[in-house]
């Protein structure tokens, strides 16, 4: 009854890029700069290297279990009872992430663009396409990713080119001025937010039609996605300076506001909002989809599609009560998220990897 869905490795790469860039692009510069000052972009490079290592771990797990998706791997490695528990924990992780991402978008629109619209209205409007996309399945929305990706690249290119006249090189000097230790400490900010979350994408390993290409496409996706983040961080530091970047909640948006070509081309900040909206849509869809797959697997429900609408109502409420104000969010994202993400993005995958080396995966399944 349930049709097997397949995407090709190029579409998977695009989804990885969207997942990495989404929601981080607009908030990551201030998190990086607050820790490692003008060397924030070096921290981002370091985070990318760690990300590549982690992706190696994830793809090795995927390869050892011949491209199965994450819930099946966990069940095979941990046994039935413990496996189900861990799958439900992963459900909680990705569901929480989905709620936070949704709230992030709502907060951004509510504070910057549509100030008088109630948060609930924004969330409902944004959830409708999400529900639709998840109901149609990964095949459909990865095709949407193929269509929208050129626009994202174009808009980002435009943003960077237009802001070149504002660059002040003194803003990133002295390079390495804060010492190696600060740089490594600062990279934790980026490792926590997009890098540890990447483990959610292993849920979709089984949908890629060429399992041997997963490793390559995952690596390329991380490289491109993190490069975009590094460039954005570099540009915000170069143009806004350390102090202003650290103060703002949405520094990339402020960066776009600064663009002014001959007093004529101004107020192009909606470019950033568009890029953010598109990439965030994919991140939210992927998180929500993954959480539904986990939930269905954890409770042995055959078809996850039936749960989409009830779950979306719960997601809606979760995103509204998730945090009372932005200060709570910044505190949570910078202080608590790291270890929460580390448990699910590093510790459990490493345990799975070690067990998979001890216990030979059976070929028959």
């Amino acid at each position, binding site marked *: 009854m349930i049709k097997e869905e397949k995407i090709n490795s190029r579409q998977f790469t695009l989804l990885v890029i969207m997942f990495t860039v989404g929601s981080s692009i607009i908030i990551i510069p201030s998190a990086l700069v607050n820790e490692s000052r003008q060397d924030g972009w070096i921290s981002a490079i370091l985070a990318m290297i760690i990300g590549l290592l982690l992706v190696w771990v994830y793809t090795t797990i995927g390869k050892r279990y011949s491209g199965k998706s994450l819930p099946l791997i966990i069940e095979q490695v941990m046994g039935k009872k413990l496996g189900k528990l861990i799958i439900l924990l992963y459900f*909680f992780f990705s569901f*929480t992430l989905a709620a936070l991402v949704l709230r992030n978008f709502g907060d951004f629109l509510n504070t910057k663009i549509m100030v008088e619209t109630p948060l*609930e209205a924004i969330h*409902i409007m944004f959830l409708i396409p999400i529900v639709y996309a998840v109901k149609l399945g990964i095949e459909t929305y990865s095709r949407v990713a193929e269509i929208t990706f050129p626009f994202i690249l174009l808009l980002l290119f435009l943003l960077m080119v237009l802001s070149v006249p504002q660059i002040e090189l003194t803003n990133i000097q002295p390079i390495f001025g804060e010492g190696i*230790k600060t740089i*490594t*400490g600062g990279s*934790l900010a980026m490792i926590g937010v997009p890098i540890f979350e990447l483990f959610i994408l292993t849920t979709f390993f089984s949908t890629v039609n060429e399992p041997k290409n997963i490793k390559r496409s995952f690596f390329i996706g991380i490289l491109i996605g993190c490069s975009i983040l590094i460039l954005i961080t570099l540009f915000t530091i170069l143009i806004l300076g350390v102090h202003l970047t650290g103060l703002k909640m949405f520094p990339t948006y402020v960066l776009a506001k600064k663009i002014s070509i001959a007093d004529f081309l101004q107020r192009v900040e909606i470019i950033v909002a568009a890029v953010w909206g598109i990439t965030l849509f994919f991140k939210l869809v992927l998180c929500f989809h993954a959480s539904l797959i986990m939930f269905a697997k954890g*409770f*042995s*429900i*055959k*078809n996850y*599609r*039936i*749960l989409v*609408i*009830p*779950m979306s*109502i*719960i997601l*809606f*409420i*979760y995103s*509204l*009560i*998730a*945090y009372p104000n932005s200060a*709570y969010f910044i505190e*949570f994202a910078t*202080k*608590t*998220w*790291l*270890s*929460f993400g*580390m*448990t699910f993005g590093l510790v459990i995958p490493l345990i799975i990897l070690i067990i998979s080396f001890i216990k030979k995966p059976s070929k028959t399944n």
Partner: protein
Amino acid sequence: MILASIIIFIVILSISIEWPLLKNKEISQTFSYFSLLALGITLTTLYGLDVKLPNPLDAITYLFRPISTGIFNLFK
């Protein structure tokens, strides 16, 4: 009030969309569908009545904050 009417609309829409799937004799599937829907409606009603709902993030903060602090101290 508006929220309640939207939710009722969504619920009716949802049941009418999923009806072909719900008619199957998958009891666990139908059960989970309706229990999740009931949970969603309850939560929305409570939210609409301005009841303070417990925030799962507080629990996460309580559990994971000490570990994070430890990691950050390593790099200080």
